[in-house]
């Protein structure tokens, strides 16, 4: 760039008559779809924060054992129904780092509750990166390292303990492993069936469509609760909780696909009449290729958004079933199982911390909804 004596600026580059007027925006216009989506999504603050939060949650799942001071079914017989304790930083006015007090358990025979009398004279600083119960990274590599541990024999219960003296905080972290993934597995199954059968029905129509429609109607007409009762009784009782959990998520998915299939079919019915589909067919593309390369990408935005919006339904479904005693069961730990233990008057009146698992459920479900909202708004970047 050169500045002329009269103060004007002139570009040094030689004039190119072939360059288009739109070149400066070309990069933008030719930007890959993902980039455009991302740009638009970035502006949806709530969705962005929720997305980041969920990403963090899922990243923490395999290493939940590191953050949880105890194994989920670790009982502490002398610390039943202990209220959440706070981690203090200042002792008698001076900063000594995070510490707790040791407590003594006393059974109050007046009220039939346990009282915990803290010894406020001696602060016990927390230990960090200490050795404790064994857990497994990704369920494979054993490790003993924990983020923090109690400095003494007395256990530390950030969010209190339940009747058997199990740490609610640790149980919530481990419970997340099941509660958060049940949705993903369920959604995968439901998508697999939903997209597969929905696109076949929509694209081919005719007899196949009729059969699939009737199957959907039958599935939809089944009363869900008795079905669940039957299924939960049919699972062999010596299966481990994880196997049961896996089956349950698959069943959840199998029951959930008809909605998706209907949406896909409707979309296909309209899309298959479009010119580009005719063009592909005339060029000799087989049906499979038409569906995969030309039709599905056309409404993938819809699919992704509906996926993120269905995951919370799956999480709530698991919670509801476990709450009713039909889904996961002890010794498996999920948020629903924990809430199932908390469904009595005592938990509300005297031990309210047993209902803490409600909070992560609400937060995660909301986060998924905001994230899904953000995605839906931004997935069609060409639309304003």
């Amino acid at each position, binding site marked *: 760039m050169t500045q002329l004596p009269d103060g004007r600026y002139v570009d040094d580059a030689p004039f190119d008559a072939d360059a288009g007027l739109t070149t400066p925006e070309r990069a933008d216009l030719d930007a890959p779809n993902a980039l455009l989506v991302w740009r638009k999504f970035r502006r949806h603050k709530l969705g962005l924060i929720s997305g980041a939060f969920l990403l963090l949650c899922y990243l923490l799942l395999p290493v939940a054992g590191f953050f949880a001071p105890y194994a989920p*079914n670790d*009982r502490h*017989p002398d610390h*039943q129904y202990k209220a959440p304790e706070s981690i203090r930083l200042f002792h008698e006015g001076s900063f000594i780092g995070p510490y707790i007090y040791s407590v003594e358990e006393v*059974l109050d025979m*007046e*009220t*039939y*509750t346990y009282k915990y009398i803290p010894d406020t004279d001696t602060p016990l600083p927390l230990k960090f990166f200490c050795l404790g119960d064994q857990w497994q990274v990704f369920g494979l590599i054993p490790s003993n390292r924990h983020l923090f541990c109690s400095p003494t024999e007395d256990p530390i219960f950030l969010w209190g303990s339940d*009747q*058997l*003296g199990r740490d609610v905080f640790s149980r919530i972290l481990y419970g997340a492993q099941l509660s958060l993934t049940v949705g993903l597995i369920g959604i995968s199954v439901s998508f697999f069936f939903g997209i597969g059968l929905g696109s076949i029905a929509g694209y081919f129509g005719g007899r196949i469509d009729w059969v699939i429609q009737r199957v959907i109607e039958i599935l939809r007409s089944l009363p869900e609760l008795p079905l669940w009762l039957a299924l939960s*009784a049919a699972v062999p*009782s*010596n299966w481990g909780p994880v196997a049961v959990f896996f089956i349950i998520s698959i069943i959840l998915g199998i029951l959930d696909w008809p909605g998706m299939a209907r949406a896909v079919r409707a979309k296909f019915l309209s899309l298959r009449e479009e010119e580009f589909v005719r063009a592909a067919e005339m060029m000799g593309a087989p049906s499979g290729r038409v569906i995969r390369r030309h039709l599905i990408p056309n409404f993938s935005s819809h699919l992704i958004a509906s996926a993120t919006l269905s995951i919370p339904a799956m999480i709530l479904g698991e919670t509801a079933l476990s709450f009713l*005693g039909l889904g996961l*069961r*002890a*010794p498996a730990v999920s948020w629903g199982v924990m809430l199932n*233990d908390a*469904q*009595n*008057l*005592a938990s509300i*009146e*005297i031990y309210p911390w047993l209902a803490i698992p409600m909070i992560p459920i609400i937060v995660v479900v909301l986060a998924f909804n905001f994230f899904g909202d953000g995605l839906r708004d931004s997935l069609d970047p060409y639309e304003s």
Partner: protein
Amino acid sequence: MSEHYRFSIRAASAAIAFALTAGTALAQVDLKPVPYWKADVEAGKLPPVAERVPSAPLIVDLEAKGRTIGTPGGTLKTMVTRDKDIRQMVVYGYARLVGYDEKYNLVPDILESVENIDDTKVTLKLRPGHKWSDGHPFTSEDFRYWWDDVANNEQLQPSGPPDFLKVGGELPSVTFPDETTVVFEWVGPNPDFLQSLAMASPTFIYRPAHFLKQYHEDYADADTLAAAIEDERSSSWAALHNKLDNMYKFDNPDLPTLQPWVNSTDGNKIRHQFVRNPYYHRVDSTGQQLPYIDTVEMEIVASGLVAAKSYAGETDLQGRGLSFSDIAVLKKGEKENGTYTTLLWPTGVASQLAIYPNLNVDDAGWQKVLRDVRVRRALSLGIDREGLNKALFFNLATPAAMSVLPESPMYQEKFREAYAAHDVAAANEMLDEAGLDKKGPDGIRLLPDGRPMELIIETAGERQEEENALQIITDNWKDIGVKLVMRPLDRDILRNRVFAGTTMASVWYGWDDGLPQPFTSPSYLAPRYQDFLAWPKWGQYYQTGGTAGEKPDLPEAIRLMDLASAWEKATTTEERSEIWTEMLAIHADQVYGIGTVNQAPQPIVVSDKLRNVPERAMWAWDPGAHFGVHRTDEFFFAAE
């Protein structure tokens, strides 16, 4: 706590006749009018009190019982959880021909006296002038009607008279010498007879004849009966008769009764009202007719709400529907509302929670293992009962193997302690000896056929207690190399699976009756009933007379069977006691049911205004009828 409940044993003495006579030590009293019926008496709708109570009423000396004389009036609110539980009023009311007193002696109640000769000839003497709740006389005709026209009528009772009346399969001869006398006579002794009349859910051996005859083919006018059948849309007169004849179900307000309170609401309602029986046979020593309380209001609520509503002070007397885990909440409500007190009564079941290894399980490999007494003993030794007691019962229960409670005369400490200590080393040794010495890589023992020793215990999934206890036992049994897998099911599914032999082991309460007396039939200790979840098929074999199930084939079980029949032939208390003791010893030694803790307290919510409710008493179904033996008709509301 046991010294409070030492029972005195009434000797059902042999050879000499003994007579039970009601406490009529007091001279005849002057009867006081009942305020509730004042208007009715004045209007001439009811006769005055002197004409209503029997000429020889049962006079209760409350002060001798350590109770206070009350004032009549008030409405008692209580809750039940199911529609059909309005029958609890027959249980709480506990007006029986003979009933237990608070020390578990059998005393005449409705009857004036009983004469018992060697348990073979029992003479029942009615109170002269006793009337049904509708004012019609209650006489031996009501017994005759039941015996001749109900129990022995093929259309009404196709199976004939109830089993407890049979001795060696033979029915008694029943005679009715006069209006107030009924005589039962058997070929041999029938020690079970009087106990059966005192049960929480007894077989009533009398019926309001004047009322039911209207619906009996032999007595009713054919046309009116046909019209009544048509009206009620019944299929036959027998169906109609049985539908109306519900002395225990208590759901027919028209059916006269002898209970202290009479059902006054028909049909399915949320709230049922029971009004005092104007013709009730008990009076206090001042001549006040019982019950003190005028009306009882029974509300049907969801089972989860009983504790919540009690907490809010919406009940005057509540035991049913409350469990140990509600104590903390109830105590909190007691403090906040100050309208009720939570009492803790010991329970009468033999074990709060017992594990029953199924000796009749279909799986041949498992059946062999579970039938090995060393395995059952080891499983019992592997349980940390102290820890369980602390974790679930605030140390208020007693760790114990499944046996009778200290209040029973047959109690022995060695039965309670049999294989009830937590001894992992001994348990491991026993399991090794039993041929389960191979272990898989996860430390779980292998069955002889190579499968891992995963014992699946099925539960009814109704009590959280069960789940938590099994969680603790799961951890305990890890130390002895046994993996416990818990499986919650529905109550009915569980029972059917056990009866079919599908279930490996199940969890239920211990014996209902943990307080047997020598004269209590020990048949529930013998393989006679499928309800004892350890031997469903042996029980079926006995119950069906050999057409279903399997014949008991372990020597100890056969011995139990022989002992149970020997008890029926025994004539003296000593003999019966001995038989009981031997049966209990077999159970203690063979560990058919693995008991955990017993005598866990049952919370009882009592309104602060309600008087005469015992501070501590036994909460037991049979014998006991829950509140029944504590005589709810003597409870009263203190004036404001």
